[in-house]
């Protein structure tokens, strides 16, 4: 065992100083994903098959390829793409890369929320002669959004755990700090352990909070599902 508390407390302030960047990047990419998720939903709802089909496959492409490679693409390759390319700093690259990757998941969450709204609600709002805008803002979204909140919360935690990927393109969050401490003093054990502990401290309570929220939401919005689960005693 080569554990040194001295190194631990020596590295702690430095590693912890990256916390602001790590959390800031989490929030920024999450906001980006939340907004861009809507873009996917609306693009997919375009009632023209080739477009919605293409959008579906682009989403599938982004979702099933590594976010790490996507980060490298945006950071290294985007600047040399002709005409539209521009140089982005590491933080912005990470916001775009992680935000875009997660927006495809968020888009699916929105979609499931919208599809979860009973078909009769659309018909009722049409029958009441609501405008398209009112239909969405007054009837559909107020019902579609709340059930998705726990899922959105889950993705926030997952995103938080993907954020240290950004250290590979030079975003100086906690992992980057730990690595630079490690390479400077050739002591990786303690700083990396600190990183692990910090992640655990932040994500574990959030996960518990969200599972509580989920249970409450299920009670409120999914009475039908709750009913069917009480009948689960029978299969065949």
């Amino acid at each position, binding site marked *: 065992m*080569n554990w040194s508390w001295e190194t631990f407390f020596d590295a702690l302030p430095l590693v912890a100083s990256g916390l602001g960047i790590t959390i800031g990047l989490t929030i920024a990419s999450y906001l980006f994903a939340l907004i861009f998720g809507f873009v996917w939903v609306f693009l997919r709802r375009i009632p023209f098959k080739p477009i919605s089909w293409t959008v579906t496959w682009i989403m599938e492409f982004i979702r099933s390829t*590594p976010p790490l490679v996507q980060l*490298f693409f945006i950071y290294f*390759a985007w600047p040399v793409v002709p005409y539209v390319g521009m140089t982005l700093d590491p933080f912005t690259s990470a916001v775009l890369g992680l935000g875009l990757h997660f927006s495809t998941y968020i888009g699916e969450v929105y979609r499931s929320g919208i599809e979860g709204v009973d078909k009769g609600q659309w018909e009722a709002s049409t029958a009441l002669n609501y405008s398209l805008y009112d239909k969405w803002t007054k009837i559909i979204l107020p019902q579609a959004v709340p059930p998705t909140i726990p899922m959105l919360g889950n993705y926030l935690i997952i995103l938080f*755990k993907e954020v240290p990927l950004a250290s590979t393109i030079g975003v100086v969050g906690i992992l980057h700090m730990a690595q630079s401490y490690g390479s400077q003093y050739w002591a990786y054990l303690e700083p990396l352990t600190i990183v*692990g502990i910090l*992640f655990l401290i932040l994500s574990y309570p959030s*996960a518990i909070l969200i599972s509580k929220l989920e249970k409450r939401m299920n009670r409120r919005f999914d009475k039908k599902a709750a009913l069917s689960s009480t009948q689960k005693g029978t299969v065949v």
Partner: protein
Amino acid sequence: MFLQSLRKPDWVSFPSKYKGVIKINVIAEVFPDLMRGLGVTVSVLIASAFFGYLMAFIAGLCRLSNNIVLRKFTGFYIEVFRGTSLIVQLFWLYYAVPMLFGIELGSNWWIGVIAIALNYGAYMSEIVRGSILAVAKGQTEAATALNMSSFQRMRLIILPQAVRMMLPEFGNYLIQMLKATSLVYLIGLNDIFYYGNILRSNDLSMAPTVYLLVLLFYFILALPLIFLVRKAESISKKGVAS
């Protein structure tokens, strides 16, 4: 909003001469190089999937054990690996474990496999546990009425049904594991991504073509898995073998 912060960091300088046309014939040049990394990517994926599923079953069943020590210990493993990042775990195994115990974990290939398997094993153990619990209570009762032992009930009645429920999620996690294999480049394995980065550092103007091609490689590997998931979903909905 973020666009306002777009600026060229002073420590990164891309010579402007690289701003040129993407050369299509670059693809022919790049492709064989990337192919050299395919073996590592695929072998890491297969091995970590194998050990990941194994871990998922072991941990999932331990979580359902009557032994409280076993249950708590497994719970601790799951929370630690789900609560921290894969990349942190990977670096921890790579840099920290040798320092902590003075041992090497074997090759970097094994470190990558172990990290991915332990991480996704922890996530998937919850699926194993949930699926077993989701098998209706009446099934256990019917098996008891036929005088089966608890081991027979698990093997003949509960697991075959639970596994069907697990399939779609297991498939989804296989795609996640494929994405995760790109991290092994960071501990010095020569996978697809590694060769892509070599090409990029040789000639930055090739970067867009190279990375797009790398992404395409991963997507082509993921495609059969995507269809597998859809197939698994339909099997799982039926509840019986087709």
